[in-house]
């Protein structure tokens, strides 16, 4: 289908974008890669009066290291998560997640900021951000604040970004010595959104795993931190028993949605299978 009519402006700064939003009385949508916005317009799921293009704003681009944190501009394209050496070294779960996100041409346009702001519960990057304990830099008319990923994802398609605010960047703490990661998903076809997915990171010491961080996706309204499974693994070496205990703990961590095509019991089962696979294949990154 064709989109309904709308006006379009290309913002040159975040302040510019926010004032255009205010002037439109909120009847506006920010546009980054546009690969969720444009289909939603063509499908007539929304019909804003104005699209505000963020792609030209310098503050939203660039990838740089500051004091042990990698700052990734919101306009960074998915393909850069695949190819950029700084992201691979300092935000490795984004690199591990990227091949699962959509298809090559979509990865050329879709942005990391757009994916996080969109907050599709079946999306890969949001879960990777939670597992890496990333922080999201949000600009509002009051100033700039940083929100931990755990508090950022509020509900289905809903984040801590208030109407008119702009996600400027994603900050990821650099891996520490002994860090291991794992990422995988189960999808019907390559490039599809996940039926269930898992992003895991931990620090492997001689005595066992520490700082275990597990985010599962497509199992609820937003990425779910599996706290009981994390606790089940903490201080232990990865072996069949530890994996089985983590898998068992998911019963308490998850409350998956139930639908006739995909019953909750099946999602829980797949989450266990997948977590087992990921834990058995953790990879050292530092």
């Amino acid at each position, binding site marked *: 289908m064709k989109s309904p009519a709308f006006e379009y402006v290309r913002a040159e700064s975040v302040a510019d974008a926010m004032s255009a939003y205010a002037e439109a009385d909120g009847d506006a949508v920010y546009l980054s890669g546009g690969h969720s916005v444009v289909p939603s317009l063509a499908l007539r799921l929304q019909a804003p009066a104005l699209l505000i293009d963020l792609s030209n704003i310098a503050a939203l681009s660039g990838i740089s290291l500051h004091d042990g944190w990698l700052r990734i501009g919101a306009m960074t394209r998915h393909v850069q998560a695949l190819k950029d050496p700084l992201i691979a070294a300092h935000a490795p779960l984004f690199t591990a997640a990227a091949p699962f996100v959509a298809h090559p041409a979509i990865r050329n*346009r879709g942005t990391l900021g757009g994916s996080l702001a969109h907050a599709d519960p079946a999306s890969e990057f949001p879960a990777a951000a939670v597992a890496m304990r990333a922080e999201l830099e949000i600009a509002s008319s009051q100033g700039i604040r940083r929100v931990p990923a755990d508090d950022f994802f509020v509900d289905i398609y809903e984040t801590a970004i208030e109407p008119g605010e702009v996600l400027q960047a994603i900050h990821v703490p650099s891996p520490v010595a002994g860090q291991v990661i794992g990422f995988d998903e189960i999808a019907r076809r*390559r490039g599809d959104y996940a039926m269930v997915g898992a992003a895991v990171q931990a620090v492997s010491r001689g005595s066992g795993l520490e700082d275990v961080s597990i985010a599962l996706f497509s199992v609820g309204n937003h990425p779910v931190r599996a706290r009981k499974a994390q606790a089940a693994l903490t201080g232990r070496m990865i072996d069949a028993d530890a994996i089985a205990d983590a898998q068992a703990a998911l019963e308490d961590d998850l409350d998956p949605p139930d639908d006739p095509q995909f019953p909750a019991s099946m999602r829980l089962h797949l989450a266990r299978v997948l977590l087992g696979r990921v834990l058995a294949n953790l990879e050292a990154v530092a």
Partner: protein
Amino acid sequence: MKADITLTVNGEAVRETVEPRTSLADLLRDNLRLTGTHLGCEMGACGACLVMLDGVAVHACLVLAVQADGQKVETIEGLNDSGLIKDLQETFHDRNALQCGFCTNGMLMSAYALLAGNSDPSRDEIRDALSGNYCRCTGYEAIVDAISAAADHRLNKAKGAQ
């Protein structure tokens, strides 16, 4: 309000006045009559509308014409005229990699983009590159064969030239 945009399409400067909602695909097809860019789903799912935008493959149905202002577009017509995909067109023909042909332009675009960055792709990598291209006729196997054959020809030619 309509917007004036200028872009380069297949090497030629183009100046057009468009509504903001006009997709790059509609600009190419309706204003410029470059109908080799096909429209199947208009939502990013089928891959029939792929073009090169500033050197990377994108879905022309998901890019607004106003977003492409100032950029370089290469369509299947441009690739055809340049001769850059002549070998792919031949292997598609040889291997029966098209039937109705609706998907073929998008397939060629994905194949062109893949081979530009990877001269020796495995069958698995070819399938991955085509994961966003639907074909309702061939069953894909022949398309993978054709791209694989074109890659082999290019490698052999490069070896021969050494």
